[in-house]
Structure formats: C-alpha cells, structure tokens
C-alpha cells in the first residue's frame, strides 16, 4: 500500500510537470495553431538560465526561477516576432519546419556556450519529509505545489483579468476579438511569453531532481504533444488532465509493468485513444 501511494506521488510529480509544459504548448496552439516543436528547447534554455544564475552568480533559487522565466519569455517573444509571425500565412508544414530549425539552433547555442555535460541543479530544499510512512523529498512537494499553484494562477489570470481574457477570446473567435479592439500581435506575443515562462518555471522546478543538459527537452516535448492531443489541442483543462493521465500512466505502468517500456506507455495510449476517438478525449469543450 505504501508503494502504491509512492506511485501516486510519482504520478503527481510527473503529471504536474508534464501538465505545465503542455499548458504552454496548448496555449500557443490555441491562439496561433502552431505546433511549436521548439517548446522543449525553451524548457531547456530555462533550466540553463536558472542553473547559470544560481551557480555562477550565486542568486537565490526563487530569483533564478524568476530570471529564467523572464529570459525565456523574452526569447519566446523573439521567436514569435522573427519566425512565426512572418510565417502566418505559409503552408502548414512550414511553421513546423521553422520550429525545428529554432530547436536545433537553441540546442547548438547552449552546447557551444555551456558544453554538453550533465549538470546538476542545486536546490535549497534537500530535506526528506516523512509523511505517514512515505518518504517524500521536499523538492517533490515543491514541484507538485509549485506546478499546481502556477496552474491556478494561470487559470485566474485567464478567467478573471481583462488581459488574460483577450487570450481566451482570441482562441475562441479571432475576428470577434479584433472587433472589440484586441490587438492580434499583442496577444500573440503575450501568449508566447506566457508559454516560455511556464516552460522556464517548469524546468527550474523539475531540474533539481533531474539533470540539465542540451537534449533534456526532447522526450518531454514529445510527451507534451501526446498530452495536448489527448486533451484536445488548444484546451487548457485538457492539458492539465492529460498531463496527469500520462504522469500516472507512467508511474503505475513503470512500476507494475516495466520501467524499460515506461516511455512507450504515453505513446501507446495515444495510438489506442486516437484509433477509437480521432479527435482526442476532450475535443468538446475546447476553447
């Protein structure tokens, strides 16, 4: 039973990070209909910015997280302006290719600057909590709490503020949004900024129990795509629920079936679900 709850905890940890990364992806997709293959690279850059500011400049964990969020948000906005905006009306294959180009570039750049070695990100929260016989490292609690509060904040931002509503409005009816005076460029930039910041915060939360290296975003981004397809592309609740589904599927599948095949689970799940329901689980209620 203890082991069972251990897996629940693992599922939550994985699921909350997957959800966070998928959220950024789904927001961008909802607004611009771009599957941003470079999102994993943004995640990776976020981890590096946190790492460098903490290790080389000795700033505090939370400050580093903030700096990373700002830096990656700026980078994401730059990508939007320089690449995705000019490709607005291009055939659908082209923006995907451009995103791949950005991904290759960012990875090479980071590797040139900081090398390819595995790095370990420090965290001030290293203690091990013992709750009801379960061993829980503090950082994991932080990941779950951090990710869920960020999701809550994002939810409030989108629901309760005028600025946030413009993003949702743009996703629901583009022309309607124009006609109430919402500026498309502003919303596009803001969406990219949020998606970048989410990736950076996710990376800073997750990296301490993991490793920092240039290819760290690869698998994550693939899974994030699985998640947003499962959850319905563009759907925010879908991304969170999808993230948790994959997180739990991996934790339990890895434990009860095979760790070796753990990474297949997400993809197999997708194939099965799409074979039965070609539009994803939550395709209704999107936007």
């Amino acid at each position, binding site marked *: 039973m203890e082991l069972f709850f251990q897996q629940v905890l693992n599922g939550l940890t994985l699921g909350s990070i997957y959800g966070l990364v998928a959220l950024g992806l789904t927001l961008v997709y909802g607004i611009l209909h771009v599957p941003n293959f470079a999102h994993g690279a943004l995640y990776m850059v976020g981890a590096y910015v946190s790492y460098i500011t903490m290790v080389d400049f000795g700033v505090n964990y939370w400050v580093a997280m903030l700096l990373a969020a700002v830096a990656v948000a700026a980078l994401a906005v730059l990508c939007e302006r320089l690449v995705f905006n000019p490709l607005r009306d291009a055939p659908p294959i082209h923006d995907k290719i451009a995103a791949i180009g950005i991904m290759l570039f960012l990875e090479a750049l980071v590797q040139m600057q900081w090398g*390819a070695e*595995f790095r370990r990100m420090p965290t001030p929260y290293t203690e091990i909590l013992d709750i009801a016989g379960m*061993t829980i490292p503090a950082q994991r609690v932080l990941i779950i709490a951090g990710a869920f509060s960020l999701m809550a904040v994002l939810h409030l931002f989108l629901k309760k503020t005028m600025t946030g509503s413009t993003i949702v409005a743009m996703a629901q009816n583009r022309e309607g949004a124009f006609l109430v005076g919402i500026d498309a460029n502003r919303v596009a930039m803001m969406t990219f900024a949020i998606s970048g910041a989410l990736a950076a915060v996710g990376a800073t939360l997750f990296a301490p*129990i993991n490793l920092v*290296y240039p290819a760290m975003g690869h698998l994550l981004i693939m899974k994030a795509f699985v998640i947003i397809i499962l959850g319905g592309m563009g759907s925010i609740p879908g991304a969170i629920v999808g993230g948790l589904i994959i997180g739990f599927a991996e934790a339990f599948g890895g*434990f009860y079936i095979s760790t070796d095949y753990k990474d297949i689970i997400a993809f197999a799940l997708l194939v099965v679900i799409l074979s039965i329901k070609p539009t994803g689980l939550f395709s209704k209620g999107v936007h």
Partner: protein
Amino acid sequence: MGNGKQTLVNRFRRLACASAIALAATGAQAAEEVNIGFTGPLSGGAALYGQNTLEGLQMAAKEINEAGGFTVDGETYEINLVSLDDKYSPSQAAVNGKRLVQQYNAPVIFTPHSGGTFALQAFNERDGFVVMSYTSVPTVTEKGNELTVRIPPTFTGYMKPFTKIAMKENGKKVAVANATHDYAKYWTKAFVPTWEAMGGTVVADNPMDYNKSADFYTGVSKVLAEKPDVMFIGGASEPTALVAKQARELGFKGGFVIMDQAKMGEMSKIIGGYKMLEGSVGVVPLTLYEEPGAKAFVAKYHKQNAEKDPTTEVAYNYFALHTVVQAMQEAGTVEDAEAIRGAFSAALKSLKPENNPYGVTAIDDKGGMMADPNIATVKNGEVVLQRMSEVLAE
C-alpha cells in the same frame, strides 16, 4: 551535353576543394606529417563523451609534437590529428572513416563507440587502416577483425571481484537497476550469470533509461519492493549518482555494484561524499590511483587544466595514441597498417610508464588490451583500493 557534364564535374571538384580547404584549416601544415583520424560524437547528446576522448588524443599529439615529433626509419614525423563529428551515428562514422582514409591517408582511426567501430570494420581491412576502438564492448574484437584494437580492457574481468566483494559486504540478493544503453546491456549479460554462479539470486530486474528518464523513483521503488541486499546500478556517473541517492531516500540500506562506466569519485561530487555509497564496489578516477604512472599523468594533466581532473576517456586515449606512435616506431613504418598493428605487443612493453597511466600490460591476440585495474570499495565512508588480482587471490 559536354557543357552539362563539365559543370557537374566542376561543381563536385569545387565542393571537394572547399571541404578540403576547410579541413586543412584545422591542422597546421608541416613537412612530414602523419594524419591520425578520429570520428566520434562532437555534437548531440553524446558530445561531451566524444570531446573527452578527443581531448586525450589531442593531449598526446601536442606532447609528441612539442617534443619534436618522432622518428621512424630515419625520418621525423609530427602528428596531425584530423577529427570529424559523427553524432554517434554509425553511418556517419563510416562516411568519416572513408574520408579519413581516402583524403588523409590516415593509417589509424580512433573511434569512441561500438557502432562506429562496427561500421568501420566493414572496410578497414580492405582499405588498410587500424581501428582504435574506445569501447569495452567485447564483440568489437571477438569477430576477429585483424586491424582492430580495443583500447580499454574488457569489463568482464570486473564480474568476479565485484560479485565477491558485494556479497561479502552486503548479501546475496541483487536487484538489477542499471541503464539500458548498449554497454549497460553487455554488462548485465555478463554480470547476472556470474552473480548466480557464485550462489547469489537476482530478485529484481528493472533497467532504466538513465539518459532520458524523467525520474528514477518509479524504477527504484519497484526494485526496492523486492528487498535486495545489493543494487546493481550504473550508466554515466551523474545519473548513476542520482539513482543511488534516490535509492537511499527510499530507504535502501544495502550496497551498490556500480558498473564501471560510472566513476565513484565523480558520483561523490554530486551526492556529497561517499557516505551514500557505503558498502559499494566500483571503480574510481585515476586521481585516486597510487601507481607512479598514474600520478605522473595526473600531474601532467593538472599542469594544463588546473581546475579539472582527467577523465578515464582522456587517460585511455592519451595512452592509446602514445602506443600507436610507439608501435609505428617499432614497426618502422607510418603507413603499413598491418605492420603497425603487429607491433602493438612490443610497443606496450617499451612504452614509458608516464604514458601508460592505467598500467596496461599486454594486448591479447584478438586486439583487446589487458590490465590489472584498481577496484574500489567504500568502507566506513572511505574508499579502499585493491588491485583486481589481489581481490581474486583473496
């Protein structure tokens, strides 16, 4: 028609020239040079590993050239190291191999991965060059390629001493939780039968992808559910350290058998000392070796890199290039690959100890190096070193 052909040919000529010029820029022109080839991952996920191996070669080449080169048959040669990136891809390694042997007449090509080695072995005997393979995978020499040298000693020697120590320190139940890449698989294949043959049982078998996995908790808790005395772990040092750490966090009290790819010294930096590795057996970095050859090499390395310790890759490849040069001198040729390969035995005997940090003693008839390495055990938070032969003799 003639025009069309001409332009096509010209275009290729120009391309070839451009690439030759580009490559030439990497090495200085000298009167008498021997081109030594290298193909390995210099970009992509395995880039660090590739660069480490290359660093060892560069260190040796620089040393040899600064000492005025080496003399073969009355002629003085310098080393020109030509390195090409293959992104860990066998086909790229094959392309690079062709290029190194065709464009640069390299008699010797180094490669730090088994895939690259296999790809080069498809044509190295015919094209006449020695493959210097930095991989412990035994099959690279088992299939009898006559011009292959496997640089590191095969890991199979570790099986018995590791098992012996781990059982003595911890108990007979082992859980397999090492990595899933090719090298780790070979290890598992050798380790499990040895462990069972020596009276142990394997209570859990759950390898994990150390380089891609988001999290090891699931896998570790799974094997711990079977209450092992010993965990067999290992991949790159950093993730291996994390696996050990997470196992301790989940309440594991036994020892680890650590596959030799992970170095205890590097792991200790990540998990804050050796305390978490109590009761473990594995290998340590060269810096902890007591032998004079190792000490001399480490000192030399630190003179050039004050902040870094030499990795195993650096040390072995450094040694390997020195051995190649020694073999060329013994063979009296810088071109004849067969003769060079044939002179390795003699070269190892005449090699200076400072150029042989790991104390490699001989090469078997299939091309595998042989040594008597140190084995490390953690007792009371301290690393205890023993020669492999000593452990087996106990």
